[in-house]
């Protein structure tokens, strides 16, 4: 009796059944509407119904440089080794082992890998994870092997496979990192020593510690309790590496200093250290070890911390301001290839530049020569050189620079006959070392210790090295 509309726009037909059921007729919007309707049905989610997999790392494969999988560890269900085929495929595609991309996707997994000491650590991931998290963790695993076995190699890992397995189990639980600090791990699983393995084999005792790692729960998880030394020592190495690109004409395209302070602390009890600098203003881009009290640094520019026991990296820093980065060496070079001839000339000379009066030593020059170079006939004024005709790498071991007579390397380059003259100009990679100098000028002022009564022996060493130091020709 109420309000039945007198007329309806055509094309709208709403049917009503006896029980008042009302539903939309298709055709309301013509074909478009139908198209919507079909698209409204949710498309079946691929992989739906699968259980949610581990948050982080599902499995780990260790692969040597000849492509053998020599260790695998699964933190949940077993993933078949065949998943590594995708990795091998990528490896084949990349000309050089170093060029294998660190993140590879496969139909069901992601492979995140690192390349360390001629080994590949390949982890299998099933869900969205922060790749950096995984990469950092893998590096930590490699660091731990290095720390435990003295080297991170296939032989060392195979020699200690049970410890490796125990370590991996301790480091990751259900994909969550558990104990990655070397101090804690060493309390849980004792590192192998020759003496201990002999003793163990006689007494039948084990490598596994049976006490709770004390540091793990305190507010200073990086340090274990009850440390005792007869000689209390604290050493700091300030190591600076110069990364630079020098162009043809000898001017600096880019230069920065990557510095670290590595510490070796062997102090009893719970020492509280503070390290201050003569010129802390240099340090404006710094990464800290978790032990450093950030607030104290912010307000006073003093590094205040309770150190882990043993070797660790206290800070790393970067000095990028161009005028602060001194370039200690220069290179005079002339590399030329003649058109339509099978030889070329090669001549480089190295000299000191801003070396702050220190001796530059340990100089090595590495050059990747163009592919068409067959051989090189050179004469060094000092040191010795090698040329590998397969990889085309020229290495000149120079030694140290004596300003009176600058080292040089001259001679002829033999090219493949008939081949066109090489287009690219080889870059020179230079390595060097300067003792007792931090090139940025960073200087430690003093080290104070609180909390313990004894007098520690303290030492600071400085060294500057070339990092990625490249000269374009």
């Amino acid at each position: 009796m109420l309000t039945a509309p007198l007329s309806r726009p055509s094309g709208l037909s709403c049917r009503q059944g006896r029980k008042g059921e009302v539903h939309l007729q298709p055709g309301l919007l013509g074909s478009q509407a139908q198209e919507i309707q079909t698209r409204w049905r949710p498309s079946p989610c691929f992989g739906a119904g699968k259980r949610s997999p581990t948050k982080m790392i599902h499995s780990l494969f260790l692969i040597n440089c000849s492509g053998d999988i020599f260790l695998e560890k699964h933190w949940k269900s077993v993933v078949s080794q065949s998943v590594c085929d995708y990795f091998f495929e990528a490896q084949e595609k990349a000309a050089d082992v170093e060029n294998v991309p660190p993140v590879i996707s496969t139909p069901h997994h992601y492979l995140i890998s690192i390349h360390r000491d001629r080994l590949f650590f390949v982890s299998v991931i099933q869900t969205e994870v922060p790749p950096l998290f995984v990469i950092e963790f893998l590096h930590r695993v490699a660091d731990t092997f290095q720390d435990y076995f003295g080297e991170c190699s296939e032989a060392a890992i195979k020699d200690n496979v049970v410890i490796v397995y125990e370590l991996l189990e301790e480091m990751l639980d259900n994909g969550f990192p558990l104990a990655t600090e070397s101090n804690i791990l060493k309390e849980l699983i004792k590192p192998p020593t020759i003496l201990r393995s002999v003793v163990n084999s006689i007494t039948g005792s084990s490598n596994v510690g049976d006490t709770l790692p004390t540091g793990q729960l305190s507010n200073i998880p990086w340090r274990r309790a009850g440390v005792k030394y007869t000689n209390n020592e604290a050493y700091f190495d300030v190591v600076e590496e110069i990364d630079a690109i020098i162009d043809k004409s000898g001017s600096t395209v880019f230069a920065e200093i990557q510095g670290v302070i590595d510490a070796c602390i062997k102090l009893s009890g719970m020492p509280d250290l503070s390290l201050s600098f003569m010129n802390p203003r240099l340090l404006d881009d710094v990464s800290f070890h978790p032990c450093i009290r950030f607030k104290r640094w912010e307000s006073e520019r003093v590094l205040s911390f309770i150190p882990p026991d043993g070797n660790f990296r206290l800070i790393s820093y970067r000095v990028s301001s161009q005028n602060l980065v001194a370039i200690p060496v220069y290179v005079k070079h002339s590399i030329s290839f003649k058109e339509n001839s099978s030889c070329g000339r090669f001549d480089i000379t190295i000299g000191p530049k801003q070396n702050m009066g220190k001796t530059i030593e340990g100089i090595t020059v590495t050059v990747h020569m163009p592919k068409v170079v067959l051989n090189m006939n050179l004469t060094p004024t000092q040191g010795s050189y090698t040329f590998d005709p397969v990889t085309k790498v020229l290495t000149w071991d120079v030694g140290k620079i004596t300003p009176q007579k600058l080292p040089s390397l001259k001679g002829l380059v033999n090219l493949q006959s008939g081949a066109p003259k090489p287009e690219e100009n080889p870059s020179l990679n230079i390595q060097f070392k300067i003792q007792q100098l931090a090139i940025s000028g960073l200087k430690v002022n003093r080290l104070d210790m609180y909390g313990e009564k004894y007098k520690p022996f303290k030492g600071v060493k400085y060294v500057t090295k070339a990092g990625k130091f490249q000269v374009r020709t």
Partner: protein
Amino acid sequence: MTDSKYFTTTKKGEIFELKAELNSDKKEKKKEAVKKVIASMTVGKDVSALFPDVVNCMQTDNLELKKLVYLYLMNYAKSQPDMAIMAVNTFVKDCEDPNPLIRALAVRTMGCIRVDKITEYLCEPLRKCLKDEDPYVRKTAAVCVAKLHDINAQLVEDQGFLDTLKDLISDSNPMVVANAVAALSEIAESHPSSNLLDLNPQSINKLLTALNECTEWGQIFILDCLANYTPKDDREAQSICERVTPRLSHANSAVVLSAVKVLMKFMEMLSKDLDYYGTLLKKLAPPLVTLLSAEPELQYVALRNINLIVQKRPEILKHEMKVFFVKYNDPIYVKLEKLDIMIRLASQANIAQVLAELKEYATEVDVDFVRKAVRAIGRCAIKVEQSAERCVSTLLDLIQTKVNYVVQEAIVVIKDIFRKYPNKYESVIATLCENLDSLDEPEARAAMIWIVGEYAERIDNADELLESFLEGFHDESTQVQLQLLTAIVKLFLKKPTETQELVQQVLSLATQDSDNPDLRDRGYIYWRLLSTDPVAAKEVVLAEKPLISEETDLIEPTLLDELICYIGTLASVYHKPPSAFVEGGRGVVHKSLPPRTASSESTESPETAPAGAPSSEQPDVIPTQGDLLGDLLNLDLGPPVSGPPLATSSVQMGAVDLLGGGLDSLMGDEPEGIGGPNFVAPPAAAVPANLGASMGSGLSDLFDLTSGVGTLSGSYVAPKAVWLPAMKAKGLEISGTFTRQVGSISMDLQLTNKALQVMTDFAIQFNRNSFGLAPAAPLQVHAPLSPNQTVEISLPLNTVGSVMKMEPLNNLQVAVKNNIDVFYFSTLYPLHILFVEDGKMDRQMFLATWKDIPNENEAQFQIRDCPLNAEAVSSRLQSSNIFTVAKRNVEGQDMLYQSLKLTNGIWVLAELRIQPSNPSFTLSLKCRAPEVSQHVYQAYETILKN
């Protein structure tokens, strides 16, 4: 004495020997045997046959042996579930061991045994361990909950472990907090809709405190969790940022990047005028640069993320160009990424440096890298206008090197430069033509042909050049063939006299001798055009082309915003949202950046907060995607077998029945179904309510002539609000409002294309709703919507659609389709668009009805701060179809008696009390369907206050 000896035994009877050794009486021998078993396991050998023998070794005091057996168990329990049960007792016992290390080890191992039968036994020990006095055990147990949830989610919920886990967020030990957060995040990932991590300022504070003290991994979990929180205002955002900033100096790059994510996200809420905003920008640069000095794998991930950050906030790294300069021994994947970022950072200030570098790279060894470097020069030219000339001359220098692939790449990019700067650099064409013969890649050939065709009038021997290509026409790739066809037609149109033969030749090659349908079609079109209307052909073929811009290689802004929320994850490496590639994307929540909010503005409701802040005005009615989809799906699933919602509602309380009944009648072809026993409509209501006044019957005219006249001006129209933000709809933004004018309702929509692609094929549909609102015509968008274009559409509505009671009553769920996807949103419509023009009730009838409606149906409301007097109120309401039936003055107060009728025939009677001195009115509403009262009151508010 090394373990490598375990690898050497490969004899056939190995398993048998091991079995014997495992069952040895000597402890030492047993342990050696277990070690051998583990060693075999690590290299993937199947030693599951030894299960019972290994499990027998479990009951031991030797911790190492225990650990080894546990390791074995975790690996093989799944394949030997019945055997694994044997181990349960030892686990339960170990969970009570006085040594916390053993307790933790036991609870950890139990969680890794993915056997359903065992999980039941696990619950009690786990409950104890969650409350263990030792934090080491608690933190291990927290992770165990996540493991258990993965095996049997229902069990975890039933046992109340989730609540215990939530309590652990307030634990005194930061490591426990971190693990609880990690476990909850993992569980939440499989339940996107649950608000397990229901973050509020208190819990945030706890997390921030724990952040300073927990391990680096814990920090990552906490930071990732913080990133999902939406602060209530800019002040809170700033204070969180301040506490997160120290993490930027952490040695662990994953911590740094997670902190960057939090900061990038919350920065969105800070006003750019704040000093703090500038400080934060400055603080972000150094840590990002530092990431580049790490190992190459880390660099790669960092660079992919920096690529996003640079697009979102170029100002952060604008002075850091040099750190992206490529070193020759960088891995290729790092080189390519660096190059990409260099172009993004290129600006007038640094272009000289960049070009010098790019030129250097173009002489490197690696071909892929060289090509990309050459392309990069072209992109710089397009991006930085002032540098175009320098870029072109750099490219010419490179062409002079005659290195084949360099020349080809250079020609491809020069074509792009021509498209960006027409009529500027044509002088170089001569140089390009010299290199014609060396081009062997399709893309380069096509580019060259395009150039020749485009500038045919300036190249004297254009016809010869093109002819030379024509010789091997059938051996060319499609790309080149198409380009050649077009180029020759262009040439013909420019120089018709000399090239007639050539054009005929190419047309016949394309149409008669080709198998490629695209080529044939294009050939025929040109042919037809040329033969019928050469002038039109000229207009078509030689039409002015739009300029290209550098935006083509930028990520779409909405996608970019989403990706910023995923900094540090795989999504950021692939530059795709997780929904696009994560397997089994279980309802992946789309994240969005929080909107900029001032402190005074209201907060979002907690449910919506974790998913980012919706920009809609009514966050509480936005259903989750899933719900809405379900509802809308009902629409096309065909008629339900027996009882659609309407049918069931008619047997409920009278009021609902009234609503339903009214609607039925509105829709019904068979009027006898209407008017149940409890529906007593006033006689006036018997008049059919017509929807369009223009189509009104004589009866309605008789009823009230004035009403139609009075509403000509139309009722109040709210300003347009954003209903569907671009972020949620792949770049389509919809805002709109509802209007009622002269009896017809319409939805005024404004569609804006914020994506980078053209949108077409729009369609709209409504879900069933309380008043049967439905589009009366299809959504007509006449032209395709190009990027950044906005179109206004008025969509007429009627009320004859399907009816379903919605919560709230005026909720409308809408689906909009375009060529990209279907999008869903919901909005609230103001009820006054449903007030019909014949809503004036007779005085007598009013009185009778008022008395007839029971008193419990009366609702009273206050309308505050309304400055109008009775007259003004009355006339204003009338324009929205609320009619004053009578007016009285009682003790100095004006009493207005009003009536209105809804489209489905429901009458609402109102008494409005206005005191001259008091700006607050009292509104009493009486209606047989009392649930509409609230909305009618809101309509009053809106009408009177606007």
